[in-house]
């Protein structure tokens, strides 16, 4: 972040091209806990790393050129980067020098092509074998689960090594829903790229569209109308509530507490219906567009929201009592799936998971983005780090989001919904953004060429820094508690596999 050659086309957050010495120094500082890696990615020529400096709270991007296809590994000293480096090698063929885990990650040997992001080489599509990490000892047995799971959920493979009922090691194998979204973005016009970004992870469609739009608007220095900013925040908070309430019900359901599940599902449905009345789509897909929003909030929409608010404010306290007073559910959730603050901080783990383990980070606060500095809200927090804590943080955040929606409606400015037209430019610009989804912070980086064509785009789901922690949290729990722990994390497969 210090030194190196500044890149002028990078707007909003500075980007510097550094030499190997500075790159290694940055890695050392990060591994000592002086900063968080927000993401690590490649554009097919160089490797970039976005870093949040703890001392200054500044975000910067460092770039290392890799003309010979190699760069010094970050994961070698900072484990959260390992899977990102494996993914970079799968897509672009760039080797992270010193990386201990050389297995493929997203590439399962099924694409019929290697390194699709750079000089694709045809290959057979018969599938690669995958060597799971060993767990040895006479009483241990393995339980393979997935990719097709028993419920209506996304696909991924879990390999448990268990000693009787107790999980000794869990290893995840992901990548099953890799769709090549970042390559589909290459040379895509902005409207198509926005549609793609909105479908990285359907449950966070508003947050993704917002993160992508913010990155583009930062790159092109677009001033978004005030009313659009408030409408975007309104959608983002509705999405947060719908997901959190659904998750609380689903976690309880995984411990067979179906009463809670039923009531949460009803409230979730009411949120989705109100969203549909306001914005014409239950998940509010494609409602955030570059430079503004697609739909205005009508008087009918506002009254639907006010009715939803009073219903939700009435229901949440009894829900809290129902959860808090039922000892049989607490017997399952308290102490289960414990994640310590040390790991949460090392991984820069965002969202409910990080906040339930004492890491208070929330992108709405830091770096912060409009309109949140003008609104007052409490960020959920807990320290126990177990399934129970993750439920309580979700309750806190639902209450905070309900209060936010009330403020947003009260303060809703008048004005236009989006800018008239995108600024014409003959140059290339870069922008980035960090947006808080219900799951945690989404990082998006984009490079846009002349005529508003996306050259490269990188989207990092919060799950990248949460999935590895699930492996740690499940250790020592019984196999039967895995669904409960997994649901309390609720990482995205699609967002991660991209």
């Amino acid at each position: 972040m210090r030194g190196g050659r500044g890149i002028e086309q990078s707007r909003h957050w500075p980007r510097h091209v550094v030499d190997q010495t500075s790159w290694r120094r940055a890695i050392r500082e990060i591994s000592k806990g002086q900063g968080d890696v927000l993401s690590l990615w490649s554009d097919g020529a160089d490797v970039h790393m976005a870093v949040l400096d703890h001392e200054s709270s500044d975000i910067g991007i460092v770039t290392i050129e890799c003309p010979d296809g190699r760069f010094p590994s970050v994961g070698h000293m900072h484990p959260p980067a390992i899977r990102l480096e494996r993914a970079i090698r799968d897509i672009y063929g760039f080797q992270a020098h010193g990386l201990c885990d050389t297995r493929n990650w997203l590439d399962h040997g099924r694409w019929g092509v290697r390194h699709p992001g750079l000089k694709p080489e045809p290959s057979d599509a018969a599938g690669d074998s995958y060597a799971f990490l060993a767990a040895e000892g006479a009483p241990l047995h393995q339980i393979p689960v997935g990719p097709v799971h028993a419920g209506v959920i996304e696909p991924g493979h879990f390999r448990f090594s268990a000693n009787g009922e107790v999980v000794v090691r869990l290893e995840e194998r992901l990548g099953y829903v890799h769709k090549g979204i970042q390559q589909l973005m290459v040379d895509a016009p902005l409207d198509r790229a926005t549609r793609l970004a909105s479908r990285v992870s359907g449950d966070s469609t508003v947050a993704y569209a917002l993160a992508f739009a913010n990155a583009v608007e930062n790159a092109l220095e677009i001033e978004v109308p005030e009313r659009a900013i408030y409408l975007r925040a309104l959608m983002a908070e509705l999405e947060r509530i719908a997901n959190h309430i659904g998750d609380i019900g689903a976690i309880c359901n995984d411990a067979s507490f179906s009463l809670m599940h039923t009531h949460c599902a009803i409230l979730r449905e009411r949120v989705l219906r109100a969203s549909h009345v306001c914005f014409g789509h239950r998940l509010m897909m494609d409602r955030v567009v570059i430079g503004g929003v697609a739909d205005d909030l009508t008087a009918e929409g506002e009254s639907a929201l006010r009715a939803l608010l009073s219903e939700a404010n009435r229901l949440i306290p009894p829900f809290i009592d129902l959860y808090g007073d039922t000892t049989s559910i607490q017997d399952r959730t308290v102490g289960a799936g414990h994640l310590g603050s040390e790991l949460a901080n090392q991984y820069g783990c965002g969202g409910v998971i990080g906040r339930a383990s004492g890491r208070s980070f929330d992108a709405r606060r830091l770096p912060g983005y409009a309109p949140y500095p003008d609104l007052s809200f409490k960020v959920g927090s807990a320290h126990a780090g177990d399934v129970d804590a993750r439920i309580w943080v979700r309750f806190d955040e639902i209450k905070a989001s309900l209060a936010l929606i009330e403020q947003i409606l009260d303060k809703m400015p008048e004005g236009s919904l989006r800018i008239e037209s995108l600024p014409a430019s003959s140059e290339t610009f870069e922008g980035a953004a960090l947006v808080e989804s219900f799951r945690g912070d989404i990082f998006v980086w984009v490079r846009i060429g002349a005529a508003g064509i996306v050259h490269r785009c990188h989207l990092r789901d919060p799950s990248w820094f949460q999935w590895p922690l699930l492996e740690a949290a499940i250790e020592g729990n019984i196999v039967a508690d895995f669904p409960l722990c997994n649901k309390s994390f609720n990482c995205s497969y699609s967002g991660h596999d991209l």
Partner: protein
Amino acid sequence: MRKFLFQGLHRPPLTEAAPLSDDPMIAELAGTLNRASRRKLGHSLSIREVDAGSCNGCELEIHALGNAFYDLERFGLRFVASPRHADVLMVTGPVTKNMREALERTYAATPHPKWVVAIGDCAFDGGVFAGSYACVGAVSEVIPVDLHIRGCPPDPVALLRGLIALVEAR
């Protein structure tokens, strides 16, 4: 907890009237279903859902089918954990190449007679992901499909309409 249970006794159900099935959907199905299988299975279907690369938007709406408003089970439709217990495979997503074999094996593990319902625009033709090196595209390129329910994602009413058509056509 007692309060919640008592409330449940006093309040009318939230469940809404069934939507009418779409005629074109019945037409699509008529060609693929025969009376013999209808007699064998009666008016009940077990569904195994397979995510073959969706963004998880379709899964959210499929989940919603189980809530009190839509109450899927009143139509004799229920989700089962294993393809070996299923009559219907409900498939979402643009079939990623990494999921192709898993989908084929799930289909092979489902006993006859069986039907495949492809959910969402991605499952119809790859949707926004069509043309990617990592996606096959339409579900019908991998396994035979009996019914498409379009939408991005289709809302629960659209899903119900399609599934009721499936039950009625049998």
